[in-house]
Structures are given as structure tokens and as C-alpha cells.
């Protein structure tokens, strides 16, 4: 059965007909052509699919597309404006917080979700906010450093 839903995705209003059992992740990738949220586990365990939904970091593999009707969705594609990187993106580059990059979009969105609600987190709060985002490559250290760096500069 198809349902028509309307979302604001990265500032743009989009209307799509979705199947009731399809997830927001699937619809973003397959129907809306937004591929930065990655398929890591489809089980809510890895965070590779993290997007901001109404400002909150969610695992888009656990959200049914129909539940997202009317929601505002933001993905990493929306962060850099006119070639200017968002401070979090910049910090990830500078701290070399990236290796294979598969976790990176989700990691950045989780970090943004945290800084939007808590602009000055402690290291432990950063680690906790990112605990749902698995990274097999980096050992997390420099991801945490990058987020702390942005928090300290306070320009997120």
C-alpha cells in the first residue's frame, strides 16, 4: 500500500509515495537520491544511517517513512554552504578523523545533534552521544577531538 508523505529534506519540500513498511533510510536513498546516510546494519546498532529529524539525531533505519510525514530532515549533504564547510566537517578534515569514511556522515550528524542541544559538552558527553555510532577504522579518538574542538570554539 502506498502512502503519500511530505518531508522537508535539506530545506526542500519533497512529496513521495512510500510503502508502509519502508524505512526513512530506504526512501532517502532510493527515492530521494540522498546517499550519505549509509546502510550499516538496518538494526539500529551502528549509526551509519543517522540523520537529524526535527533537529534530533535518529537512526533512519528504525524510522518508518510514514512516521516521518511532515518532518524536517537534515543530512550531511546540507551542511556545507556555498563551498564553505560546516565547522564540524572542517574539524573532521583537520583532525584526520576519517579513514574509510563510511561512518563519517552519520558520525557528523550525531555530533551536530549533540552540539545543537548542548553546545559545550564534556568529553564524556561527546563519547556518550557518539556511542551509537560505530567506527571500525579510527579508534574514535580523533573524532572526539574534532567534536571537542568545535565545541570549544563555540561556532557550531
Amino acid at each position, binding site marked *: 500500500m502506498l502512502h503519500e508523505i511530505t518531508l522537508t529534506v535539506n530545506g526542500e519540500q519533497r512529496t513521495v509515495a512510500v510503502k508502509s513498511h519502508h524505512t526513512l533510510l530506504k526512501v532517502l*536513498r*532510493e527515492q530521494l*537520491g540522498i*546517499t*550519505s546516510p*549509509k*546502510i*550499516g*546494519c*538496518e*538494526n539500529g*546498532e*551502528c549509526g*551509519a544511517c543517522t540523520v537529524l529529524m526535527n533537529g534530533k539525531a535518529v537512526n533512519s533505519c528504525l524510522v518508518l517513512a510514514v512516521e516521518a510525514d511532515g518532518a524536517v530532515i537534515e*543530512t*550531511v*549533504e546540507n*551542511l*556545507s554552504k556555498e563551498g564553505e*564547510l560546516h565547522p564540524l*566537517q572542517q574539524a*573532521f*578534515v*583537520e583532525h*584526520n578523523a*576519517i*579513514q*574509510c*569514511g*563510511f*561512518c*563519517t*556522515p552519520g558520525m*557528523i550528524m550525531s555530533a551536530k545533534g549533540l552540539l545543537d542541544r548542548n553546545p559545550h559538552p564534556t568529553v564524556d558527553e*561527546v*563519547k*556518550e552521544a*557518539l*556511542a*551509537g*555510532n*560505530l*567506527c*571500525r*577504522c*579510527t*579508534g*574514535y*579518538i*580523533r*573524532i*572526539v577531538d574534532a567534536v571537542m574542538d568545535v565545541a570549544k570554539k563555540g561556532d557550531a
Partner: protein
Amino acid sequence: MSDLQYKYIGKPADRVDALEKVTGAAKYVGDYYLPDMLYARALRSELPHARIKHLDTRPALNVPGVIAVITSEDFIDHGRFGFPVKDHFALAFEKVRYVGQAIAAVAAETPEAALNGVKAIICELEPLPGVFDMDHALDPDAPQVGFEREDHKHPNFLDMSPVYKGDPDEVLKDCPVVLHEEYRTVHQEHSYLETEGALAIPTSDGGVTVYCNNQSPFITKGNLVAVLGLDPIKVRVIQPHVGGSFGGKDDLNYLTACQVAALALKAKRPVRMTFSREESMIASYKRDAMHMRITLGADKDGTLRACKAIHTLDSGAYSSQSPFTAWRASIHAMGAYRYDAVKVEVTSVYTNNGFSGAFRGFGNTEACFGIESAIDELAEKLGMDPIDFRLKNCLRVGDVTPHGQKLTESVGLVECLETVRKLSDWDRKRAEYARQTSQDTRCGIGVAVLFHGTSLGAEGVDCATNTIEILPDYSVACASGLTDYGQGPRTVYTLITAEELGISPERVRILLADTDTAIDSGPTVASRSTILAGNAMRVAAQTLARTLNFAAADMLKCEPQRVMRIGEAYVGPNEEPVSWEKVVDHARSMGLVLSAHGKWSAPEIHWDHHKGTGTPYFGYHFAAQVAEVQVDLRIGKTQVLNIWAAHDTGKVIFPQGALGQVYGGITQGLGYALMEEAIYADGYLQSVNFDTYLIPTSMDVPDMTARFVETNFSPGPYGAKNIAEPAMVPTAPAIVNAIYHATGKRIRVLPADLERVALGKSLHKRGSPVSCKVGLKVK
């Protein structure tokens, strides 16, 4: 060599692919949605060992949306495949040997239709008894997993790798202090965040282009050519961005590439297969499990005399890389020490426990846990400090290794040990923690050392070729057959090119790996990219630099040796600088070729596989790591507080990249030490997603301090060695040795989880086939 002489080597740099990755622009194979593209899905075995009695794929074709279906009949020689042992098939033929093995594959308009197609296939399997215990794989009455052998050895025998020096049994008789213990490691899942996948696009000439998240695209190509019978010129393999691999995206992905290519040729449409996490965990190969039996003998004064290491390696259903893994394990099984006599025998066997293949450290991760635990136990028996004991016996420049190889340079182990001793405040903490009496929580500190042969070693032909070309916009494009799946070699090649050509790194572009533009340089494995392709890149860039220098001299009307550089500009005796662009233009007008190949071959070495002696590798990475832990004695929970790591990497070319490898490697080692266990119960994997297969999160990682000991390594580019694998190898034994220091309990079976630390054993749990069976049939 002073750092001052380099502009980019060893200096801060950003990863060349960082921008694409932080903006979400980087495309991985699953991000390709082509018009007309079909989705593929494989029918996978639900039995660990069975005969295929009846296979009828026709019903799948009646399922709406299904376009094509294939079996082993669609390949030449049933798609027989495998290196070094040809024991596998592109799709199962006659038999299945493990749960998750692909039997048939379907391409359909949607993933749902593909899954329905798979479910419609009629496949009757007749169960066969299985082998699930490697220690009984070679019993005379063990069920037969492997093929009959020409030499009439047991069909479940795969290979045996020896190292022999003298007669340790004789020497052990003389040793006042002897230790004999057994150690076990379990299968480990790579857990790359991106699962396996391949996309095949049929081309108008009857060939196929395949995008595959493999490590070594030329091997994928070779397999495609062999099993599809295509003209090599019609087969092209492109490696898009790869979401991690760690050794894990070889064999299974070669099979996947063959399957999608056959489907695409049949359907005459693009076909993509990407694995669900469940499918990935069930079907993919793992780090082998190893059972190690170690005997060490020493004199009272702490001089190590003899080592015996008799190991069994569970290769699972197929050989994959196990003979090479076992070989690397054998070379490193005695650790980085001097001995009078050594006997190592590592035997790999077939079972029906999934299948084992390459994983970071490649046999040494397992062997290092064994020997570094045993060395710690022996130090304790001798009443010696673990670092003092290692310092007394470890390899130094001028020593001859137990293999018979004289080490002439670049052995920084002593310095590594001294570095971590100091950084960790070892002596004070060893003494302080020895006095703890709390029954609740205690701290401990432990050490482990490593040596790790660089590159392939005597495993195979070892050379690489890179290419370089100046493009019309004055940028420089380079290609390498050794690829980047996250480790960072593209950045290494960039820095080398910029250094040699005297240009800004921004001008340099390293192409993504593509068999049509790069030159086959062997597999991207064994942490060999920096040394092999780094040298090849350097040779290519130097050749091009000479051409440009010649053109500049012509322009500046002077001898080539009088041409100087200021920034990118060329300057002659009249001191008027000419820009890089002008020199390039001039070279073009002179008709010079502005492209070059650079080839580099590793020094020739030899290993005698029967005598167990020779020169296994042309160089070694050395390292020492110290772990500090806090253990909750009541529940057995270990928190790693700190890791100090000193690695003799030779000259570091891309420091942030090298550090990233160390942090990431330590974290994987921590997982291996404390939580990761891919358990097979009667051949069924018990954890099929990250809810039950736990890997370290941001909350689990300790503070990490890394130092590089940069001994010069003359064959390496600028003196560089390797880092990717060695980073993880000593972490697990360092942590387990620290747990012993904290608790007085010796964990000889990994992982050191709550039960093993609190109770000294793992509680027996009954296994279940359910998660595998369900996992293969969902999403």
C-alpha cells in the same frame, strides 16, 4: 636524514579524500543506483555440510520481477576458484561446506522480488556429518570436508608450515626453567562498516565492467576472466570508495563479483548485489581460530634457550588465505627473541566452521597473543620484570633470527620497549599495583612486543608499478594498482609525488583504482602499499622530474645540474624564476613525453618450506605496547585505561595517517582482547549483527599515546616501513598480561570477557541455528 630536507614527507597533511567523505559525496558501491539496474540476492546454505541432491531454479523465474538466475553451471568449470588452493566455486557445486555458502543467485527488479526468487528455488540438501572441532579434523574417522589429496594425506589437512633451528627437545633438558602452556584464540569478524557488494554493467562488446568494494581489483579481474571465459580486454574492474576491509574484502567479494557479472551478462542489464549485515556476517570469512601449544625454556639468569610452538589453525570450509596465514604465524610464532633452538609447526585444517581468511595481522595477531602470554608467564616464573626479561632476550641489529636471517639494520625494538617503559611510568606502577589488596577493583599494567615481516615475504612475487602523467591543466595524475580502502595510501602517494616533483600536493590527483588505468601490482594486502607502491611512485615521479629538469635547463640555457627550485618555480644561473607551467609547456614544445612508469621490486628472498629456514621477509616492523587496566573483580569487567604504543615504522611519511592506523589498530586489538568472539555452534554462527557481535564503541576506548621510532630502513621509500597491521597485533596480549597483573588470573583463551575474568571459564551456552536461518531470509 634530517627532516629539514623534506617539504612534504613526514609533515602534517590532510587526507586527499577527506572532503568527499565529510560532505557525503564519496560514493560506495551501494550508492550506485543505475537506471534499469537489477538487484541480486544469493540463495545460501542453511546447513554446514551437505550434498546438493536437487537444485531447480526454474520456479524462481516465475516469480514476478525476477529476470535471471544462475548456478554453478553458468561458469566455466563450475567457477572453480581459489588461491593458493583451488577448492572453492563461484556458486556451490555438488556440496556445501558451510552455513552461508552461496548456491544460486537471482537478479530481479527489486530487492524484495530477488528475495522471493531465492525462496522459490527448489534446493534439496542431504545433510552430511560435519567437523566442528579443529583438534579432531585429522582424526582417521573425521568426516571428509576437503577433496581427496594426491599425496594421500588426510583430506582435511591443508598445509603445515615449519620453522626449525637445532633440537629444542635436547636444549629443554638442560633448561632449569621450563614453561608449557596452551593458548586459544577465537574467530574474529572484520566488522567493516560497509558490507560486501558488487555492481556489474554489461558492455556493448559483450564484456562487463564491475564496481566492487574489494581490496585487489586485479585479482577480481583475473577471476572474472577465468570463470566467465571473457577476453581480458573486455573485463574492467573499478574500485569505488570502500568502507573498510582489514583483510576481509577479498575472496568472498571475488565470488560476489563473479555472480553479479554472470547475472548481468545473462540479463543484459546492470546488476548490483549488496549484502545485509546478517548475510555479511554469516557468509563472510573470519580471522581463523588458533590452538597454540607453547614450550619455552630458559636459564636461571633469564636467558631464553628454546621454543617449541605447535599450533593448529582452523581454516573452516575453504582454504582461502589460510596456508599463507599459517606461514606468517609460523614465522612469528617464537616472538622477536634469540634462541638456541626452535621448532615451530603450524598446521591448518578444514572444518565446517564458516571459513577463515585474511584479517589484519594475518596469523601474527593470533601467534603474538600466544607467545607474548607465554613470555610473560616465563618472566613470572623467573621472577623477572616482564620488560627486563624481554630486553634481555629481544632481537637487536646484528642478531641472527631463529630462521637464520641476519638482521643488519632497522631493529628498533629496544628503543620501543624503553619508550613505553618511560611513557607509562612502568616501574612505579608495577610496584604500586603489586601491593593492591582490594577485592573489588584492581589495576594492572602489562606489556607485549611484536615483530612483523614487511609485505608478502617469501609468499610471492613482490613488486609494484605506479604511473604518473601531467594533464593539460598542469595537474598531475597518478595511478597505482595498490588501493585505498581507508588506510590512506592515496595520501602517501600524493606526498611522495609532491616531494619528488617539487610541486604543491594540491596539484596531485591519485586516481581511484581501475584495472583499465592502473598496472597490476599484486594484492593490496600485508601492509605493503607504502613500501612497494610508495617506492614505485617515487621512481615514477623521479623519472618525470628528470624530464622536467632537462626542459628547464633548456629554457634557462644552463646545465641541468645548475637548475634550482624556489617553491614550484625553476631558477637558473641568471636567477629569473620560471613557473612550473612554463617549464611544462616548454617540455611539451620540445616533444618530451610527460608521463612515466615507476616499477619497484622488493629484494629477492628465499624460504625453504621443508627445512623451515631462510629469509622470510626483507624487513621487519618492531613495536612494544603497554596496557593499563582496571578490573572489577566482582563481575570480571575490564576497563582499559591507557595504551602506550611505540612502533618502529622506519621513516613516517604521513604522520596523521600512521597515527590513525595505530589508534584504529589498538581499538581492534582491544575488541579482540575483551569482547569479540564469532562463535560457531555446530557450524552456525551465533552472532549475526552488531546487537550481539560487539565491537568497541567510543565509550570503550582508552587514552592512547603513540610514538614512532624511526629507524632507517634502506629498502623503504625515504626509509619507511609499514604500520597498518602491526598496530593491532600486540594489543591483546598487552591487555591480557595487564589483567594478570591486576588479578593474578591468567587468561589463556580469548576474549577475556566477564566470565573468563570473573570465573576463569566461559559458561557453557547451547548454540542455536535460528539466527543464521532467519538472517539469510530477511531484508
